[in-house]
């Protein structure tokens, strides 16, 4: 009924405002503005600054490829790339396996299913916060419950944050702990697998493991691809936890690339150099994502 009010409006208004192109651009305008002003212009500036010596409030000085040449010999930068890749390679699969495991665990239709899903989602709700990072720092700290337990099991003098070998582990766990959104996406994928696939396989004598590898995984593969890409990108950008929990230490063991760029740009005021670092990071990420997409046709399976 309400719609009827507009009946006359259409005829009276000029046709320009009703033109699909005009309407489209009016509705898309917020994104177009942000794409130009907050993405394209900053990217162009960033590219320009990466060829400059630049401190905030000073004039950028063109130095050609100097920043990139210096980057090649910068041990701190090389190290931060290495530890970031290590973090991603260990952390992302762990998170996805965890998410899939919990999603499968919670497919069983019980009255408590909604409640369970909500409880398992809680870590994702708060895991990115400063509050949790501060808690994590104490939870895995030298006098916290986790280290106390490990010591009680016999590893005397064990420490996460004092060790270059183990400092990454609490950060990886904090990230894997926030498996909620991947879990929900897996769960809705699982719901769409027709039941008779499993029944048919069962009649053919396939056991649970075989059913998982020959039905569940292939059908979920496009969703795995989606989750993998999203988690890779967020893994590469990890910042808050590293900044608060370890501040990159000990001895640069958790000096992840985002943290390194932040310090280089804002603490040391090497903004041109930091821009060059972010471009290298972007290229590496684009290459990795590209490789995954290219190879995905071999391991993802589409029903149609």
């Amino acid at each position: 009924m309400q719609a009827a009010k507009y009946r006359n409006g259409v005829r009276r208004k000029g046709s320009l405002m009703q033109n699909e192109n005009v309407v489209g651009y009016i509705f898309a305008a917020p994104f177009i503005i942000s794409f130009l002003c907050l993405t394209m212009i900053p990217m162009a500036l960033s590219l320009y600054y990466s060829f400059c010596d630049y401190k905030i409030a000073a004039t950028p000085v063109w130095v050609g490829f100097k920043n990139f040449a210096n980057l090649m010999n910068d041990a701190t930068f090389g190290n931060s790339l290495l530890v970031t890749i290590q973090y991603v390679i260990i952390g992302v699969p762990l998170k996805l396996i965890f998410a899939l495991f919990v999603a499968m665990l919670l497919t069983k239709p019980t009255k408590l299913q909604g409640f369970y899903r909500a409880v398992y989602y809680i870590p994702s709700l708060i895991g990115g916060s400063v509050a949790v990072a501060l808690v994590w720092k104490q939870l895995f700290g030298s006098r916290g419950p986790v280290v106390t337990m490990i010591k009680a099991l016999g590893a005397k003098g064990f420490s996460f944050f004092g060790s270059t070998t183990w400092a990454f582990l609490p950060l990886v766990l904090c990230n894997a702990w926030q498996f909620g959104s991947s879990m929900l996406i897996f769960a809705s994928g699982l719901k769409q697998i027709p039941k008779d696939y499993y029944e048919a396989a069962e009649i053919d004598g396939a056991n649970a493991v075989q059913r998982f590898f020959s039905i569940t995984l292939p059908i979920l593969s496009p969703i795995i691809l989606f989750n993998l890409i999203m988690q890779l990108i967020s893994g590469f950008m990890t910042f808050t936890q590293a900044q608060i929990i370890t501040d990159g230490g000990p001895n640069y063991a958790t000096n992840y690339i985002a943290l390194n760029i932040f310090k280089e740009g804002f603490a040391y005021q090497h903004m041109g150099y930091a821009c060059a670092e972010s471009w290298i990071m972007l290229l590496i990420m684009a290459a990795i994502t590209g490789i995954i997409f290219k190879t995905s046709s071999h391991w993802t399976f589409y029903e149609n």
Partner: protein
Amino acid sequence: MYSRRVLRDTIYHIFVIAFGILMVYPVLWMILSSFKMKSEILGNNAPFLPSKWVFENYPNGWQGSGSLTFATYFRNSIIVSVLGTLGTVISSAMVSYALARINFKGRKFWFTAMIMTMLLPGQVLMIPQYIIWNRLKLVGTFIPLVLPKFLGWPFFIYMMMQFIRGLPKELDEAAMIDGCNKYSIFALIVLPLLYPSIITTIVISFYWIWDDYMGPLLYLSKPALYTVSLAIKGFADAQGTNFGPMFAMSTLSLIPVFLLFLFFNRYLMDGVTAGAVKG
């Protein structure tokens, strides 16, 4: 047969509950620690439950470490999060409608641009964006944190687009025949039907903005403008080993997010997944 099923179900529930407790243990530990005396929080003999429940950590923490109390920081967080969420919902709904339902020239291009933006790591833009806001003399205000939210957030645009694509096109056509134009279809048909997706956007964008640390760290230079996430970090550093008040303020800082989740949990679980899978 029957009793075996009961046994299996019981084992299932025990396992899920035990694993669930392990998952929320860090949160429980934080909340319980906020009610403990200093000596019981850390160390070998720290009990799980406080031997004596103390409440002083809350008023002590609320006082903050400088001249400002947490009342200021909570106010700032609420301003930034409410405005930011509002902006995200309005702008993302508009853009998603354009990309999902209107055949305008360049739609494919802008859709690709949106996906690229979604996949682009923020660190590439961190420094030049800061420089631009600095040139505009807006560093040290809420504007760099709030204004971009009114210009669409690709993640939510994508999510809403998937939802709109799931709405039958016949609705639009029927409304057209009834005399609706593209604007009234958006206002009277798409927006009301979009509400599960809108609620999901409200919850997720609110807690992302509330939890955001890097934005405030870059743009809020004066303590009077600090959000809770930024203030709490400074507070923890200032308190040193006096952890009780820090745990108390950490707990408080998570309450708004918890409340929102509690109210909208049902929609959230459906909303996130409605779009993602078909993508």
